[in-house]
């Protein structure tokens, strides 16, 4: 299992890097899905099967489909590859990379001070649901309001006049 964790982690990192380096938006999206699935595997390894499946169903299966749907509607894709290449000037990478590197360095510094080995144990759907509809029922309500707002906003924004 521990090997699975590192393999999935490596796949996630590589795929994610590939996402931001891609010039073809569809390929980028595929890499992102791969990354999400790898993260789902990590969730599973860490003892959160419910989260893992949700990652696959909602994130990879629904949200990314929305992306793809929009890409199809706007007919982006390979035609925009040259344009994409123009937009990705090498100089544009410098400042963000430095910034991200500093941030990452800081995070690593902070995180490396933690020293705890966790033994993953399954926390199944039942436990999560019991909490979700017990103490955190308010969070569920908030989430549903948020989704409703998102629904209304998306409907309104994407509507053709």
């Amino acid at each position: 299992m521990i090997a699975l964790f590192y393999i999935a982690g490596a796949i996630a990192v590589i795929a994610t890097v590939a996402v931001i380096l891609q010039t073809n938006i569809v390929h980028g999206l595929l890499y992102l899905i791969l990354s999400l699935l790898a993260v789902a595997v990590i969730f599973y390894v860490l003892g959160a099967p419910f989260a893992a499946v949700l990652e696959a169903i909602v994130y990879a299966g629904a949200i990314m489909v929305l992306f793809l749907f929009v890409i199809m509607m706007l007919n982006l894709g390979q035609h925009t590859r040259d344009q994409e290449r123009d937009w990705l000037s090498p100089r544009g990478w410098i400042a963000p990379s430095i910034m991200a590197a500093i941030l990452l360095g800081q995070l690593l510094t902070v995180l490396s001070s933690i020293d705890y080995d966790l033994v993953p144990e399954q926390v199944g759907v039942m436990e999560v649901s019991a909490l979700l509809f017990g103490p955190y029922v308010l969070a569920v309500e908030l989430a549903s309001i948020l989704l409703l707002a998102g629904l209304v906003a998306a409907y309104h924004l994407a509507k053709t006049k």
Partner: protein
Amino acid sequence: MELEIGSALSIGLILGVVIITAALLITVERRLLGFWQERLGPNRVGWFGSLQVVADMIKIFTKEDWVPPFADKFSFVIAPGIIMTVVLLSFAVIPFAPNIGVIDSNIGVLFVLAMASLGAYSVMLGGLSSDNKYALLGSLRAAAQMVSYEVFMGISLLGVVALTGSFNMREIVESQADGWYIIPQFIGFVIFLIAGVAESHRLPFDIPEAEQEICAGYHTEYSGMKFGMFFVAEYIGLVLISSLITVLFFGGWLGPAFLPPVIWFAIKVFVFIAFFILMRAAVPRPRYDQLMSYGWLFLLPLSLVNLLVTGVIILSTQ
């Protein structure tokens, strides 16, 4: 973590049986269609056309595996692979018999749903990468259809999950020893049936590939073995949906003891396969917007009400 990984042998065996069944379905479907439509169907190759599938496979394997020059090669190539992978992966959690099955997972039902949702990519990528307007239209339709019906499919089987108290397919089957869920969850069953057909975009819901409207839809540009993968995957999906219905609503392998459990399972699955083929022969294709509004305006409320009533009954009988 109850993860029973079966031996490589049993995995191979199950995969082989599934694929061969799917392949055989090509012939079976044509024969059955012919039977229902009062015509002969393929009857030349082999005994009553039983070797027709071999002939088809030889044809598909030997065709030129051609990628259109205007297509996005990467997406074009992996698209059929995705659908094959996800439908075959779904079988990993199906319990065929008390001791036959790949994984006995606590999240079996969710896993199937996850795979089904990933299956949408195959259709969408296939259409998008083909760079063809019919393909694009087909994949747009497929995307909307599959994402929509995934929702009702998930909600419709939550009634079963609630009655069992588990996402584990094996437990679901075992809890049907006293009675199949088709009785208490009839509405759920109907919705699941419809959503399942839509998910596998079989007729009458084959709108993404409606020949009369948009050529062959998302796989217009596909040929050779890539087309074969789409083609076979559709039949595997048919088997999958039939298996799921069997497991969730018809007691899986459960049956009178005069036959082994796996045979009971196979019989039930075949009945549903036949039913789907009969639907193909009998029901006309709805319009795309009808499909969508039917789903969102009728099936969604109905499935929610079903879930609600189920919950109320469970709580009141506790």
